[in-house]
């Protein structure tokens, strides 16, 4: 291993600028002549727009333009799209309601974009937005899933607000298994709606240059090329070759910055409307709460059939998923192909059936949020298994172990479409139980009881499919794009390396990990590698960063580009060393004639490529190679999380006292970055379990619209984590053997926390398990009632 190569705990090179305040985010960019945009948003959850009077706004000083949905229509701009076509049971395509850049005729959630005001200064834009007159005719709103089917229509042309009614699995086999089951465990549960809360709010600067007849869009994006594609091909503001999209430093995304929203498109369009001045918009935190695509929001009914020994026979799940007022860029696939396909978990359950109804409601659009479908699946399965263990008086660890897919069974075809390539679930379980001292739990519980506390322990064995994705597979399931990735490796004369990647880093540390990878592969110093990303004019076309794909897919493209560099280098070395190309070996940055001490360094070879005075005939000069990689399969990280809580029965407060995470991420490039990713995911998972939850009132007003009412986890809400990465089972879908690690924590943690609380108090509490809910659950226990 090179000192800073694969496997080294190299500190993140990007942190120098981040922790010294030198990051350059979209809002840090200011351009000459820049104007400012403010969006006028609907205060109503559902209303008809009766009239918009622009005159009072236009009359104010500094106002350059006031644009509304009619202007969007007049310019013939296309609607925002959902890029994944899901079909209903009857084969009919999902019903996609029109999603214009600015609302036309109706508004469908509080915060829906009604108009934009562009002015010389931000203050002038705000004043003009205040002056704009919008008259609404209020309509009854539908807010939650319970009322969605019979409720008022969000899109007049979509009956019952039903976008699709989808299914996966063998229903007949499942029904038959239930018919012969010894025991059936049943539950209903809610997966609570979350606000993504990236530290940096969304922002954009649109600039049309009339001289070049070309557009530039700076924005907060996880996938600038996807933004360019949708804005040109579907919205139609600019042709793709005339549109440059730049996502500079981005302060967190968690999914919310994948999507193509209206605001970013509108500032680009508005720039042209005002004659080519740059137009900047930066979301206020209130706007982030209202309009960044929310996550989760499922209501499910789940049943597990077991034989008398606790073997799982079949799983049956019905889920209703809330889409919000409009479909978002990938919202259709989250509660379907990224959810139901994961319901096998780590288990050999032979028959699984899931059907999903996705409904429109008068709430913010819902889309991928860290984990995206997989946390919902994992939470459902892992809490259901705990309930089954309780009902059958089995140990929660043992019922899992009994049902694990054995490590000899890989590759393993699940009944819900996926083929797991590798895994060793028992190894993670054993290690986690050892680290948490599972055997010593009764003594710890007794000690807590002496202190007046209820102690519980909860296990969650998660699996996820990430590193999305094989294009042919996702294409067959309805995806409108391919999900390969790209990389380019460019040497300079002096032997320095520029890595251009189609992925985007917004907290994941790609600049460090990719540098380590290249240093190891090419034998160049880590410090000599520079990673460039986020600019469609510099980097090769790529699909971006989400679904824990950057290393497994983008990293593999990088490896292959390096391989091409080495292959070309061998030709040059063979020429210079007067040997046969087949006899040239490359190791640690040196091309050597096998069995001799004749060698050339990669720096010498690169120099020869750029100064080809003595060079192989017919070989192109230069040293720059690119590669695209489309993986044959997803990667399947897995692991066991064990959480211990102490509950104060007087107040219902839950204290997470211990949290052990054991993950199998395959091979690891930088363990420190991986641990950091797991820490972040765990905090978000614990946040979902204990603190976070979106509340709309019955009329569709967002009540949890600021940090006064939406509770984010803080350092004192989480314990000091014990995070361990086992010597993993190498993934077979990329040459590095790596799996994704970005979402695992958020996927596995909620069930571990809730199972621990259930274990402590004997009743399952819905998320977020606030002190009030826990206290009420304690009061509702049969014991508490009997004592009255």
């Amino acid at each position, binding site marked *: 291993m090179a000192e800073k190569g694969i496997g080294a705990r190299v500190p993140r090179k990007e942190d120098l600028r981040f922790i010294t305040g030198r990051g350059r985010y979209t809002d840090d960019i200011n351009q000459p002549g820049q104007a400012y945009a403010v969006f*006028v*948003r*609907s*205060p*109503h*959850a559902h209303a008809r727009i009766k009239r918009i009077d622009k005159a009072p706004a236009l009359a104010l000083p500094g106002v350059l333009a006031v644009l509304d949905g009619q202007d969007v229509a007049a310019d013939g701009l296309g609607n925002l799209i959902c890029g994944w076509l899901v079909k209903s049971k009857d084969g009919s395509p999902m019903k996609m309601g029109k999603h214009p850049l600015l609302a036309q005729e109706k508004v469908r959630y*509080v915060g829906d974009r009604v108009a934009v005001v562009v002015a010389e200064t931000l203050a002038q834009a*705000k004043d003009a*937005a*205040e*002056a*704009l007159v919008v008259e609404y005719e209020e309509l009854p709103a539908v807010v939650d899933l319970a009322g969605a089917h019979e409720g008022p229509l969000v899109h007049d042309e979509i009956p019952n607000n039903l976008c699709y009614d989808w299914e996966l699995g063998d229903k007949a086999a499942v029904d038959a298994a239930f018919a012969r089951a010894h025991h059936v465990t049943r539950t209903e549960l809610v997966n609570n709606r979350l606000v993504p809360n990236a530290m940096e709010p969304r922002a954009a600067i649109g600039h049309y240059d009339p001289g070049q007849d070309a557009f530039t869009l700076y924005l907060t994006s996880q996938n600038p090329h996807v933004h360019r594609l949708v804005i040109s091909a579907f919205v139609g503001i600019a042709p793709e070759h005339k549109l440059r999209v730049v996502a500079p430093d981005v302060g967190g995304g968690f999914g919310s910055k994948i999507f193509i929203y209206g605001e970013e498109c509108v500032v680009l369009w508005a720039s042209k409307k005002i004659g080519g001045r740059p137009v900047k918009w930066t979301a206020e935190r*209130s706007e982030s*709460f*209202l309009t960044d695509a929310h996550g989760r929001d499922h209501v499910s009914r789940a049943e597990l059939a077991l034989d008398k020994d606790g073997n799982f026979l079949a799983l049956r799940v019905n889920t209703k998923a809330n889409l919000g007022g409009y479909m978002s860029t990938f919202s259709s696939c989250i509660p379907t192909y990224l959810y139901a396909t994961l319901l096998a978990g780590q288990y050999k359950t032979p028959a699984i059936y899931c059907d999903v109804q996705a409904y429109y409601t008068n709430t913010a659009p819902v889309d991928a949020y860290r984990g995206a479908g997989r946390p919902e699946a994992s939470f459902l399965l892992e809490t259901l298994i705990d309930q089954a263990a309780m009902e059958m008086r089995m140990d929660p660890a043992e019922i899992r172990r009994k049902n694990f897919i054995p490590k000899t069974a890989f590759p393993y075809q699940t009944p819900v479409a996926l083929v797991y390539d590798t895994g060793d679930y028992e190894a993670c379980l054993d290690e986690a139980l050892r680290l948490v001292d599972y055997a010593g739990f009764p003594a710890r519980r007794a000690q807590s009881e002496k202190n007046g506390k209820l102690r519980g322990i909860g296990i969650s064995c998660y699996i996820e499919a990430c590193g999305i994705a094989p294009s042919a597979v996702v294409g067959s399931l309805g995806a409108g794009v391919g999900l390969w990735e790209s990389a380019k490796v460019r040497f300079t004369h002096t032997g320095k390396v520029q890595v251009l990647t189609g992925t985007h880093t917004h907290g994941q540390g790609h600049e460090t990990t990719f540098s380590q990878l290249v240093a190891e592969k090419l034998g160049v110093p880590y410090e000599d590698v520079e990673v460039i990303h986020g600019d469609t004019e510099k980097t090769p076309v790529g699909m971006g960063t989400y679904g824990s794909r950057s290393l497994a897919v983008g990293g593999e493209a990088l490896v292959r580009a390096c391989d091409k560099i080495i292959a070309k280098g061998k030709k040059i070395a063979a020429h210079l060393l007067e040997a046969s190309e087949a006899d040239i070996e490359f190791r640690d940055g040196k091309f050597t004639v096998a069995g001799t001490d004749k060698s050339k360094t990669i720096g010498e070879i690169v120099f020869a490529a750029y100064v080809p005075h003595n060079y192989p005939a017919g070989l192109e000069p230069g040293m720059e190679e690119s590669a695209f990689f489309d993986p044959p399969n997803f990667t399947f990280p897995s692991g066991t999380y064990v959480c211990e809580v102490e509950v104060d029965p007087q107040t219902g407060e839950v204290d997470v006292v211990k949290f052990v995470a054991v993950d199998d991420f395959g091979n690891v490039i930088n363990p420190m970055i991986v641990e950091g990713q797991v820490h972040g995911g765990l905090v978000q998972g614990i946040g979902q379990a204990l603190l976070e939850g979106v509340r709309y*009132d019955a*009329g569709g*007003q*967002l*009540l949890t*619209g*600021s940090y*006064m*009412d939406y509770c984010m986890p803080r350092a004192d809400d989480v314990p000091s984590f014990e995070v361990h990465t086992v010597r993993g089972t190498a993934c077979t879908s990329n040459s590095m053997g790596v799996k994704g690690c970005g979402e695992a924590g958020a996927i596995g943690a909620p069930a571990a926390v809730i199972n621990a609380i259930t274990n402590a108090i004997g009743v399952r509490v819905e998320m977020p398990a606030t002190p009030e809910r826990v206290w009420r659950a304690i009061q509702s226990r049969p014991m508490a009632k009997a004592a009255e």
Partner: protein
Amino acid sequence: MDMTGEYRIPAARQRVWEMLNDPAILAQAIPGCESLEKLSDSELQAKVKAKVGPVAATFAGKIRLSDVKPPESYTIMGEGSGGMAGFAKGGAKVQLLEDGPQATILRYEAKAEVGGKLAQIGSRLIQGTAKKMADDFFGKFAELAAAAAAPAEAAAPAVEAAPPAARPTEAPPAPAPAPAGLAGIPWIWIAAAVVVLVVLLWALFGG
């Protein structure tokens, strides 16, 4: 949200009713009132500048009166828009009860609904803000009642005649009522809308 409450105003019921019908008095007493305009006998339009926590805006709104029984009770419904700050709408039933010849108890039951930024950021602050505005209003209202009464009495200065704040219980009786001001069909100002602000105010000022 639902709100109920009562205030004791140190003036005779007929006098309170009349003052509640006097746009000049109301405009002076309502904190942040920018304009008050009668559209018809039962409709009124107002502009009020208000701040609920971090949300500050000028609210423009309309109110309508119904079930008017002078000088005992009325029902008021209204809605107002605060531009970027959102909207408020709601209604209140207001009763004026005699508490001896020199005092009146105003009792209200209000329901309010708020939307937009007011709901998003201000909802937990609304009750407190409404309470403070109501207190400010009644302080001023009592002062004006006393000032109006003073010339008629040709007696003690207004400040002594009427304590600055009307309180549900302790407020001492005010001096005898002044001659009737405006008569006719009752109506109220009401501002519009701020949220509760307004709704509470609706509740409080009746016609």
